[in-house]
């Protein structure tokens, strides 16, 4: 249970406060409703590059990190398909430094050309480090455009290709800031050793004078229904084969989200889940296999990622996985198994409330979904799910025609490059 208060500044900024006198710290979370789905298809990776630039200086503060560190604070940020989220923790006595820093960069950016140039290079190195230089790092670069043909989820947060980042201009950056970085498109939450009245005063002082903005249009093209299985085969210099299979499923805010999430948990959460027992332990098809809902705000994916035991063929591995998923489409989940999934969800939810930083993020996140108070009804939502709903979701989602599959093979030393139909990057032998 997270007790909180909510108020809205005249400029439209929504603020949530959770008082916790038991900690010497304060966590602040600023969520901007902008992610990779808001990018132009020729300028992908921009929301994430922008996240880097937000540390490159604002109108009155040449460097964001230094004053925060001097005040004993620490921060980070992340970008995904839908949101860009900035968070910090700071000793409670220095909370005003956090308001000064976060309000100044909402009020206006002022970084230099040099900063833009350097961050372009840093993000290119991040791209290389996480997506190109490490084994299997490009799997999602290949999967997204296989699963999505129209919706902007067809590219990754890091971007479609390095050149999009290299070509970003100062004009692009200013335009992006104007559209998405303003009080109407943000949610601020504070959790820790504070009083709501104190936060209200500080908000009015520091965020109050910032000009409001216009809510950005959100008319993402809907992904049409998929009616045919899509596949892609690649060979890469990796030590073992992996199978990636994704199915279109509901959005984060759809009523069937919780049933879909429990379905994934029943399949793969923990060491006594169906896929682990059957395919890892007993049949020894995979050494590891995971299933999860992508959690996106628009229609998302139910994802399976499996690492094959050496010597098992891709066909046999996929067939074994399909036998397990077919059970869920044919037979209702036994009550005890559903109870277990719900109890796991409840424990997860309670554990996510332990840290102030998580509480602040949860409040911002649920407010962005529509109503912060829903953060206190998550366990109820899971407990309402019935076996019949899971059966229905499984029937709708787990159909072959609705799937996209990436067969990721090791490339053998004999030079067999297989039938790779031209990935964005040519992997060398």
């Amino acid at each position, binding site marked *: 249970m997270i007790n909180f208060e909510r108020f809205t500044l005249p400029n439209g900024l929504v603020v949530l406060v959770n008082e*916790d006198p038991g*900690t*010497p*710290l304060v966590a602040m979370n600023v969520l901007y409703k902008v992610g990779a789905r808001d990018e132009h298809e020729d300028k992908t990776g921009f929301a994430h590059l922008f996240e880097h630039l937000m540390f490159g200086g604002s109108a*009155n503060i040449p460097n964001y*990190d*230094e004053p925060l*560190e*001097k*005040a*004993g*604070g*620490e921060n980070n940020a992340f970008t995904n398909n839908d949101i860009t989220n900035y968070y910090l923790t*700071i*000793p409670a*006595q*220095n909370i005003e*430094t956090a308001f*000064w820093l976060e*309000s*100044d960069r909402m*009020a206006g950016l002022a970084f230099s050309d040099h900063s833009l*140039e*350097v*961050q*372009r*290079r*840093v*993000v290119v*190195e991040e791209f290389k*480090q996480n997506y*190109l*230089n*490490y*084994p299997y790092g490009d799997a999602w670069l290949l999967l997204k455009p296989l699963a999505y043909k129209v919706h902007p989820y067809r590219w990754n947060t890091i971007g479609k290709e390095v050149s999009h980042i290299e070509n970003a201009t100062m004009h692009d950056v200013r335009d992006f800031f104007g559209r998405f970085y303003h009080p109407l498109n943000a949610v601020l939450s504070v959790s820790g050793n504070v009083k709501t009245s104190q936060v209200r*005063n500080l908000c*009015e*002082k520091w965020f109050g*004078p910032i000009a409001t903005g216009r809510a950005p249009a959100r008319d993402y093209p809907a992904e049409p229904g998929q009616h045919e299985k899509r596949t892609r085969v690649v060979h890469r210099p990796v030590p*073992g084969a992996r199978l990636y299979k994704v199915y279109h499923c509901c959005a984060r805010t759809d009523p069937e989200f919780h049933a879909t999430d429990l379905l994934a948990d029943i399949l793969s*959460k*923990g*060491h*006594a889940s169906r896929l682990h027992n059957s395919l*890892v332990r007993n049949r*020894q098809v995979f*050494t590891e296999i995971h299933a999860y809902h992508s959690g996106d705000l628009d229609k998302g994916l139910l994802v399976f990622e499996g690492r094959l*035991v*050496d010597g098992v063929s891709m066909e046999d591995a996929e067939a074994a996985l399909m036998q397990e998923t077919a059970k869920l489409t044919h037979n209702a989940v036994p009550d005890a198994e559903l*109870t277990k999934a719900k*109890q796991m*969800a*409840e*424990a997860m939810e*309670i*554990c996510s*409330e*332990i840290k*102030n930083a998580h509480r602040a993020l949860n409040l911002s996140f649920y407010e962005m979904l529509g109503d912060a108070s829903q953060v206190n009804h998550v366990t109820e939502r899971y407990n309402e799910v019935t076996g019949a709903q899971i059966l229905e979701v499984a029937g709708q989602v787990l159909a072959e025609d609705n799937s996209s599959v990436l067969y990721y093979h090791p490339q053998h030393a004999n030079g067999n490059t297989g039938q790779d139909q031209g990935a964005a990057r040519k992997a*060398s032998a």
Partner: protein
Amino acid sequence: MQMETPDRTREPRVRPAPELRIQEPLVESLSGGAPLYVIPGGQQEVCRVELLFRAGTREDPNRLLAPAVSALLLNGTAQRTAEQIAERIEFFGASADCDSSAEYAAVSVVCLNKFLGEVVPVIAEAILGASIPERELELYITQSMQRQRVQNKKVGYVSRKLLHRALFGNDSPYGHYQSEEEYAALDRRMLAGFHKGNCRNLAGIIVSGKVADSEIELISRHLDGFGSVSTESVAAGNGHRPQPEKIRREWPDAMQTSLRLGLPLFDRRHPDFIPMKVLNCILGGYFGSRLMSNIREDKGYSYGIGSAVVPLSGTGFMYISTEVNKQSREDALNEIYAEIQELTDTRVGHEELDLVRNYMAGMLQRGFDGPFAAASAFRNVMLSGMDLSYYRDFMRGLMDATPGKLQELAGQYLQKESFWEVSVG
């Protein structure tokens, strides 16, 4: 209410951290003699129970058995299979993680208070009766080998391995990395023997979270089958004293090069330990550090760079690590060494030192935020045979690290020729 107009050009006044509030754990004793430390706190009806065993690689002359045994502690007894044990834990939403290091093996259970009575006895029974079934061992070997093959394709992992081996020697618990042959040769009878010798006695239990007497009583009662053992290891320390070397592995297809520099240092008890932590922080220990400002924020050679001072049992080391754009390897190395040399050549300014002290004091506070964090902070010192006064000493030590002292330490420890240098990619 009167509206204040903010002066955005002036940063709000920074106030010093209040006295660090460190709660001493309550200490109880199990009937088998092991100490049970309780760190109460938090609002959520959940707690963490950590069982600590003196079953790390130090206790294992071959270095092979300890990680395998800790991974298989909950994977089967004569009466129950691994699936059955996992089911009885996960049904109640609890989770149990096993991990091991050079010094210790630990089983960490997170459980809603209302289910402690169901979960704790399952954990105790599984560990005490662990039979290391053949099927589970085979699965462990297959998984470990596959994971290692993937890791060996990563420049960062390989450079870490090469540095640790070079610093401590492949026979040392700190330098040993298992080969595929060693995995394949694991024998269940030897594992069972190591389990019998090392996993039936507890070196300690740490319970943290919203726990009252009734929960403590319940946990103690269900763990009464364990004996006790002191935290002091009988194993020999690390006698390895090699000469610095440069190790290079060229990977023609790699897009980035992992650079890892390191040198041996000392453990937490050494009088220079705390000021070295400060010196390290200035060099590469936080986002605003000199290395980060230079290599990432000024040059854009890398997504990130960092350095750390790592205390081990009776020894320790420092390392600097980054993955850089392949073309920039030599430039990055030159810049890293220039930053190291600068620490010897020029005294740190007071402004930078104040910032780093405040940052480190804030980190220390964060290390005690919430019962689980406080339990981890306690565990770190407890396993080194120290107590929480270490953290109060640390706060004082931050203030004693003067520019003159830091310059002296840089001259003493951080010379270019003292560093091992590994480059992969």
